[in-house]
């Protein structure tokens, strides 16, 4: 059974991979002289609003800073307005880049998927944010709509489209709140192993902190959703009649049963991933009845 990534995790991984040096995957941003500068960006603009795009990528050749916000659903109007008003002066004032500040060119784009493309384009039509939109469709990424990057090289690149050829790497960004339980369980498994090896009690926040290197820079809604999701995963394991290797302590902390060994822990987590993946793949009854006739 497949345990696929959610759109948000896939998008961030896809864009990070474009900045890597690795051969065998498309790396056009790296070839244009762009380098990933920050993940999980959070800074104030000159009006005191929080700006929180997912990625900042610096282009040395053109003195161009590219900010990317990955969207798996629609656009929040307030956030998009902040992005639309953001200028290179805000970037300089916030001291968030190592690029030379004079003549700095700022580009900010929404990255979405084929399935939410219409939402992104509709929001743009209604509100005229003026931000370019790139869309990941199957294994290629292309610019949609009429808005343009300030850096012409980015227009050329994304107009032509980037073909990922083989597969999109998944190892740069771990997981998002929209990921399935089976996927998140796999991602946190090494941390559960560590807690077990050290005999430690832990909270969902402890697990998130160790499993997600960008946890401090997630917006509060995403962070709360992730902590809640991890808590539900731990409760679900505790209640599973076949795999009760997680024990809750005073309802706020958990630990892995000290009576099990690492081989059992591996088998237990592996079997739960398979079981949950299968359940997640099975359409729910109400989903079946709510489908529109084709």
């Amino acid at each position, binding site marked *: 059974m*497949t345990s*696929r990534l959610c759109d948000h995790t896939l998008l961030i991984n896809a864009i990070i991979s474009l900045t890597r040096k690795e051969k065998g995957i498309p790396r056009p941003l790296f070839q244009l002289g762009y380098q990933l500068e920050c993940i*999980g*960006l*959070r800074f104030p603009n000159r009006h005191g609003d929080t700006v929180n795009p997912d990625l900042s990528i610096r282009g040395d050749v053109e003195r161009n800073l590219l900010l990317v916000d990955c969207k798996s659903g629609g656009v929040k109007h307030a956030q998009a307005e902040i992005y639309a008003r953001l200028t290179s002066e805000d970037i300089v004032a916030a001291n968030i880049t190592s690029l030379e500040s004079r003549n700095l060119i700022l580009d900010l784009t929404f990255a979405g998927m084929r399935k939410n493309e219409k939402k992104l384009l509709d929001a743009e039509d209604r509100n005229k944010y003026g931000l370019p939109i790139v869309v990941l469709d199957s294994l290629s990424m292309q610019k949609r709509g009429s808005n343009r990057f300030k850096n012409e090289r980015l227009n050329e690149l994304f107009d032509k489209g980037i073909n990922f050829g083989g597969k999109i790497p998944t*190892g*740069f960004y771990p997981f998002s709140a929209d990921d399935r339980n089976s996927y998140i369980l796999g991602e946190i498994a090494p941390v559960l192993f560590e807690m077990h090896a050290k005999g430690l009690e832990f909270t969902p926040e402890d697990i998130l902190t160790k499993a997600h290197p960008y946890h401090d820079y997630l917006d509060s809604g995403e962070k709360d959703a992730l902590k809640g999701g991890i808590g539900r995963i731990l409760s679900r394991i505790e209640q599973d009649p076949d795999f009760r290797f997680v024990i809750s302590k005073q309802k706020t902390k958990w630990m892995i049963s000290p009576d099990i060994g690492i081989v059992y822990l591996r088998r237990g987590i*592996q079997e739960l991933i398979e079981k949950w993946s299968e359940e997640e793949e099975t359409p729910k009854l109400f989903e079946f009845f709510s489908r529109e006739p084709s």
Partner: protein
Amino acid sequence: MSDVPVKNRRHLREILQENLITETEVEDHVPAEEEEAEEARKRTKSQILEANVSFEDYVVSTRDAFEFARSEDSTLWNIMFHGSLAGYLDIANPRLWILHSIGAAKEMNENVRNMTEKDNSMIDLPWLSSNSLQTIGAFGKTSAGFSLKYRNRFLEAGTEIDVEDMTMRFWGSAALELIEQLKKNKRIEGGLSLNGIGLIHQFEKGYVKEQVSWSGRIMAIRGDSIDSHFSVLNKVQTYYQNLLDVLESEYRFSYKSLPHGVAFSGESLKILFERRIGNLRDFVNSIFSTTQPFRLWGVTKELEPDRLKVKAVDLHSGGRIDFEIEPTQMTIYLQAGACANVVTRLFTNLQSTFDARSQLVGYDEPIM
């Protein structure tokens, strides 16, 4: 093993030099041919050990097994196992220690196993792949032989006509040429995984004939110059140190928290196979089920039918490492703080048990 503890580095040199001369005289009269007989010989030898722990912490963690007696030099220790002198431990390089011994090779191997095999031991072997041994073979003035050992652990996983198990030893100066000739045979090439290389090294007017094993053991077979032995040892140590440095500086993820976000650096690695993995699940289960020689704990997620993601832990050091595995390649994401030795261990063992033609590549040239 001599019962004489070393006082300082000069004393160590005298002991090793004297033993080298004595054993060369023995070799002249009774040349050992069988591996078992050789393992009983008390040749001068040095084992490189990869350490992920400070010496002080290591002494505390192994006090039930080993005792350490100081010499006059703070980086040279006499190491005792069950009350007997087991060797001389040089910790001048805090990452790559050297255990010198003039005892029987099999005793040294046993001691090294005791030091390295326990989970979370934080001490590992330097894993020299077949490619690395070929590189090391060229450190000498001339080559002196090679041994190869290939055990196909993935009979079920391969789809091609599987490569058979192979063992071979060759002594002679044409070793490197013979290896190249053997590679031309397609049936043999997939199992042509070196596990030892012989070389003759000269330093000024002295020489030593050495056997370097996959595990980082450098054994003087004959010779008259301990300086030559030290020279080979230094070259192998430097080679491996550089390898770890490249892996850990370029290919290990690092996250730096800044006031406005997280600066990320690090690239992924790839192992490219010539042999196709037939059954990905079986392949992954063989590697990540905590057993020797891989020492990896990992759970698997299916991204696509021919692509698995594995989240793993290195049982030697507790470091984290992630993989994407497809039928002809493995992408490796070495996580922050993990020891790069996990990569060399995996690659070396895949060469000797799955595909000797596999390559470890980064963004530039093959790495090892």
